[in-house]
């Protein structure tokens, strides 16, 4: 082209797995100093592609050019030697070790403690990264943990840095901080390959975007020119359906109230719930935002009945004290819960879908009589869930573990929603679910609320909460902020609360009735 070879150029890259083609004839280029977005839905083949670039997987066909010369990247070590750094979505960190030890473990060749320490300090200085090298990882926020991964990559002065879904767990302020670092890196000539499905972030950060769908490149565009909607439609290959909201929202009577709920977390790394108070009314969707690991799991367990409150009156469901009732008794009162972890918590992977349906629906639907399971009814109910929520499976006899993440989530959501609960508590309803299925789940939640149920949605996805919830609270280090109407809340405020800058401690708004 203009004399300077692209930093990275792929052509004709194809990767097949048994039964699927993950990448077909993929070609794109990343220039030196360019921030390039790789955009696509879950399952579009982004992860496979970056694994090929980083040497984790080998392509079946195709060519990779590095600074104009063909290369074969056999393993991550070879990739790092070329100057490719990668920050994975799931961090490879060791909770009980210090930041410095974690960085040392990420090095290919041993470096003296003093030398490494000096080098780390230098990088922290250059990029204005606040991070204490002597802290143990489990005491750090997710944003700080990500910085460890970034330092690990920067220590080798990379020429290409791959960021895989880096912002999914960050507060808006942390995202802004990350973008500044990435821009600084790019200005120094480091190319950045930025993988995400969050369109506004890509518009804010990236100069060029390659869009993948079904393993193929469907478009290359300038995200600053395209609209978020047009990119989303390229990404999913269809028109995007907006969630239909009922107009106006008159709050009904309180269906669940929580007052001063405190619970010690499970050691060693559990979070203590501290004086949590909330009220959720008929027809209301209450969103609970927060960075992962701030007490969301503990809150869900406390609401579902897996952990019992100290006093019965701390949790009231439809006027009944439920704080000391277990999950089964609370389900009989009309509460249903969907935990974040699908396999092993929301469903038993080895059990059939019908058996999994019996596990939570037996109370409200009477699927067990005199100690015997009513298999025909259970099967019929499971079939209804599969049909109404378009779960892709072979039938009620399929094991839960055989379903893909998104499909299992649809099944679990359907299993709870079709029981017509009066209170539904759900954590991460659309985590790892593709956009089509996510829209379907959102619609089902909105419809359930419209029918008079009270819903609590715990999520790390702010966009989801802003589009779904009527009211919003933020959980941080086990404390819940005051509840506010979504319409009156700005992203900045939420971000500050997520980062732990507390406003005045206010009792949950509104009185209990």
């Amino acid at each position, binding site marked *: 082209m203009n004399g300077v070879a692209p930093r990275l150029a792929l052509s004709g890259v194809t990767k097949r797995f048994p039964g699927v083609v993950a990448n077909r004839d993929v070609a794109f280029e990343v220039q030196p100093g360019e921030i390039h977005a790789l955009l696509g839905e879950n399952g579009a083949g982004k992860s496979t592609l970056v694994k090929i670039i980083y040497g984790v997987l080998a392509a079946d066909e195709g060519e990779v050019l590095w600074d104009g010369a063909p290369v074969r990247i056999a393993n991550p070590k070879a990739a790092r030697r070329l100057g490719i750094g990668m920050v994975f979505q799931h961090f490879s960190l060791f909770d009980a070790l210090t930041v410095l030890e974690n960085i040392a473990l990420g090095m*290919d060749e041993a470096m003296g403690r003093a030398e490494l320490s000096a080098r780390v300090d230098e990088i922290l200085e250059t990029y204005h990264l606040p991070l204490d090298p002597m802290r143990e990882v489990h005491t750090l926020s997710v944003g700080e943990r990500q910085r460890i991964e970034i330092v690990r990559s920067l220590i080798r002065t990379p020429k290409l840095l791959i960021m895989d879904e880096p912002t999914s767990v960050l507060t808006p302020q942390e995202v802004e901080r990350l973008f500044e670092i990435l821009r600084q890196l790019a200005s120094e000539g480091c190319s950045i390959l930025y993988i995400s499905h969050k369109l506004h972030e890509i518009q804010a950060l990236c100069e060029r975007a390659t869009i993948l769908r079904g393993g193929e490149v469907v478009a290359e565009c300038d995200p600053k020119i395209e609209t978020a909607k047009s990119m989303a439609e390229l990404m999913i290959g269809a028109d995007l359906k907006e969630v239909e909201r009922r107009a106006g929202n008159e709050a009904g009577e309180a269906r669940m109230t929580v007052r001063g709920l405190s619970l010690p977390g499970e*050691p060693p790394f559990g979070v203590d719930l501290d004086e949590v108070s909330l009220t959720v009314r008929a027809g209301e969707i209450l969103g609970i935002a927060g960075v992962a690991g701030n007490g969301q799991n503990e809150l869900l367990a406390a609401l579902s009945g897996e952990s019992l409150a100290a006093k019965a009156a701390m949790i009231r469901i439809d006027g009944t004290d439920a704080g000391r009732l277990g999950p089964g008794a609370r389900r009989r009162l009309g509460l249903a819960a969907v935990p974040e972890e699908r396999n092993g918590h929301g469903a038993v992977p080895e059990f059939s879908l019908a058996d999994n349906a019996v596990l939570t629906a037996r109370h409200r639907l009477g699927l067990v009589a005199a100690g015997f399971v009513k298999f025909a009814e259970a099967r019929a109910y499971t079939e209804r869930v599969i049909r109404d929520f378009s779960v892709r499976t072979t039938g009620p006899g399929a094991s839960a573990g055989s379903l893909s993440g998104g499909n299992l989530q649809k099944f679990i959501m359907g299993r709870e929603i079709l029981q017509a609960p009066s209170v539904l508590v759900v954590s991460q309803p659309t985590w790892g679910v593709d956009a089509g299925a996510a829209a379907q789940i959102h619609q089902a939640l909105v419809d359930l609320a419209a029918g008079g149920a009270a819903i609590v949605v715990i999520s790390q996805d702010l966009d989801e909460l802003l589009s779904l919830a009527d009211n919003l609270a933020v959980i941080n280090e086990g404390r819940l902020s005051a509840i506010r109407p979504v319409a009156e809340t700005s992203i900045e405020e939420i971000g500050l609360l997520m980062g732990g800058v507390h406003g005045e401690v206010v009792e949950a708004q509104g009185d209990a009735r």
Partner: protein
Amino acid sequence: MTPEITIAILMTVVGASTPILLAALGELVVEKSGVLNLGLEGMMLIGAVAAFAVAATTGSAWLGALVAMLAGAAAALIFGVLTLTLTANQVATGLALTIFGVGVSSLVGAPFVGMTVEGLGTLFPESLADDAWGRILFGHNPLAYVSLLAVVLVVWFLNRSRAGLILRAVGESDEAAHSIGYSVIGVRYLAVLFGGAMAGLAGSCYSLVLTPLWADQLTAGRGWIALALVVFASWRPWRLFLGAYLFGGVMTLELHAKAAGLSLLEPEFLAMLPYLATIAVLTIISLRRSGARAGAPACLAKPFRASA
């Protein structure tokens, strides 16, 4: 109490503590890598009988100690193949290894029952140990010095060396270690073999030092005490050292109470004390909030299967 008796007590405490310290140190390293080998008692018995058989047939106690280490490591290798390569349940495999060790030691030891061997003796010449301090400093069996050196080496290895850091990382998060590019299984094999060799050496302590006379089940359950000690010490080598000497002290109570003519408590009760203390310690530690898991490697006893 006369100085004579004080020194005598001290000497027996060191003798009783040495094998449990050796075995527990090995197990600590194994557990730090994320593997729980409950077969300590079995590996110690295999070490004990190997040491005795070699010492009895060749006349060399030192060769016996060396073979004990190899035999312990070989037994650990069986455990490693089952749990690491074939990802069998570690608890069940460890228990099976103990039962196996009891059987093997009985079988191999049968012709030697009642025989005596020339033990390891003392490390330093008698002349150095002719006064009180000389005895305290230089009068112990060679393995006592080995065990103390091992404590220092293990502390240094775990906290100061890169290899030790990798070992702790593997025990902390096998997935993360694997994704960075460390061989989880390889590291664990090395740790398990080390643990086996240390257990074998600990076993040889019973047959070559404490009672240079073969009897069935010579280690008498001390392997279980060593196991509990690792938890007691919250996986820290220095605490392990203190714990081993504490337990060694309790174990020798019985002997000295008898020698001193104390008949306040039945000797059977005193013999039971170390085991009671083990149960008490484990209960107290587990009762403390966050106690039992504090310091425990996060991946302890969790099998690892490498995925792509």
